[in-house]
């Protein structure tokens, strides 16, 4: 990433997404509480604009994604995406494509690590947001549901793939077919989220981790994300080859002061000892 410049400027005119940058941690809050933060056409285009900028913004080191008001997100505002009285067909089709684009590609491919902070409720299309984040924390009392089946629909767009990527096969089938709700600890057991916390602890745990990640080398974080994304589909020999190429790229991108080159020198001179960092054993 070179100079952030104009392209990386966080848009300040968003109506349905609230942002705030504090010490490298960008909070992105879905902000349509009267509609339970359901994703509308307008919110969709705002997310596209926002995430395109975030990807180019060096000041953003970590992204926390959350919902304003009583819950995280109630899914897609389906009516808005199909209401031909307000917008013509081509516009609606483009909006539906954009709704997939920001969840499946823009959010997933951000160079910064992303944490979903989920509270209250998380329904249907919101699963596609949570899955695309690297880490997902949720309050114990969050209501999760793949409710599509309850109104004669199915987990469309990115949702079916989102759950099959993260959940155990049995959990994905059970919750998608039954539409039953489940809570934070159950979501953790299925593999859909990383960890569940008592509701009162969620914010502190999330931002503690976000600040911790903001201190880490941004290039190493980006490459860690990329490796985890790509190596599964590679043969072992391809992964070794990829590793060798990424290793060289890492070295070239980390050559400035305070870079990896400097840390290795300091390590070889016996001044630092990499290892467990400051974190304590446990979870």
């Amino acid at each position, binding site marked *: 990433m070179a100079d952030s410049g104009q392209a990386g400027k966080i848009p300040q005119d968003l109506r349905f997404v609230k942002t705030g940058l504090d010490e490298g941690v960008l909070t992105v809050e879905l902000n349509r509480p009267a509609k339970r933060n359901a994703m509308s056409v307008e919110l969709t285009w705002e997310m596209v604009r926002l995430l395109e900028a975030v990807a180019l913004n060096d000041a953003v080191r970590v992204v926390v994604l959350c919902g304003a008001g009583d819950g995280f997100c109630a899914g897609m505002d389906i009516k808005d995406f199909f209401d031909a009285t307000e917008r013509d067909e081509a516009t609606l089709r483009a909006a539906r494509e954009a709704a997939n684009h920001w969840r499946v590609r823009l959010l997933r491919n951000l160079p910064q690590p992303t944490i979903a902070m989920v509270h209250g409720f998380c329904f249907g299309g919101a699963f596609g947001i949570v899955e695309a984040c690297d*880490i997902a924390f949720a309050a114990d009392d969050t209501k999760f549901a793949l409710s599509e089946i309850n109104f004669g629909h199915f987990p469309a767009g990115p949702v079916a793939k989102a759950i099959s990527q*993260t959940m155990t096969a049995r959990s994905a089938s059970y919750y998608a077919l039954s539409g039953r709700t489940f809570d934070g600890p159950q979501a953790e057991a299925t593999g859909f989220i990383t960890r569940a916390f008592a509701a009162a602890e969620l914010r502190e745990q999330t931002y503690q981790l976000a600040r911790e990640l903001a201190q880490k080398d941004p290039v190493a974080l980006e490459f*860690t994300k990329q490796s985890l994304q790509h190596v599964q589909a590679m043969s*072992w020999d391809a992964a070794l080859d990829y590793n060798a190429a990424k290793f060289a790229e890492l070295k070239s991108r980390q050559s400035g002061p305070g870079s990896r080159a400097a840390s290795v020198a300091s390590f070889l001179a016996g001044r630092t000892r990499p*290892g467990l960092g400051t974190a304590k054993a*446990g979870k």
Partner: protein
Amino acid sequence: MSAALPPPYAACGQLALERSDGVLAIGLDRPAKRNAIGVEMTLELESALLAAGRDAGLRAIVIYGRGGHFSAGMDMKDFFDHSERDAGLLRRARAATDNWRARLLRRLPQPVIAAVGGYCLGGALPLVECADVVLAAPDAVFGMPEINFGFVPGGPIAKSLRRALPARAASYAALTGRPFDAGQALRWGLVSRIVERGGLRDEALRLAARLARPEAAADPSPFPFLLEQART
């Protein structure tokens, strides 16, 4: 177990190898460095695993750490410090590492049991990921500390992570660098069973002996077929 090591095994300085009744015990033996895998150990691991692959009478393998830890991972300093070893040897050591972690471990025709106590960090992961059964002591500490010093779990380690842990767990461990304990490793499916520390190695050897079934040594081993099914 008998101390005498039959061919094709070579004597080692940083691995404690014992071979008896169809079982090979591989002890990572560099306790002063928490069994960090350096140039010598990686070359020895490659040669021991090559030998095991050719050992027709071998029926099970146990991998454990001597002293307080399983392994603190790769000894990075060893692999990049040109002041003590020539470039050819370092290159050979890096190739040997890739050979055992990307190929040899995955093609062993025998079941592998890993016994993990203390640290099991970073580059030690493939040893555990490739094991068919993983026993861990309550004091086991797993983690991917690479990110804590501006590095990444490289290609093959990231691939090991994705295979050994659920998606969420792999991302969390690699991006945060936070260590996790045996209980968490069990919940994430990395560990098969938790075994009290004092009996860890013995339990692994007992299990290996049961799998080896010396009384049935004349029969063809059922494991190559079973393992091929289970490991893919």
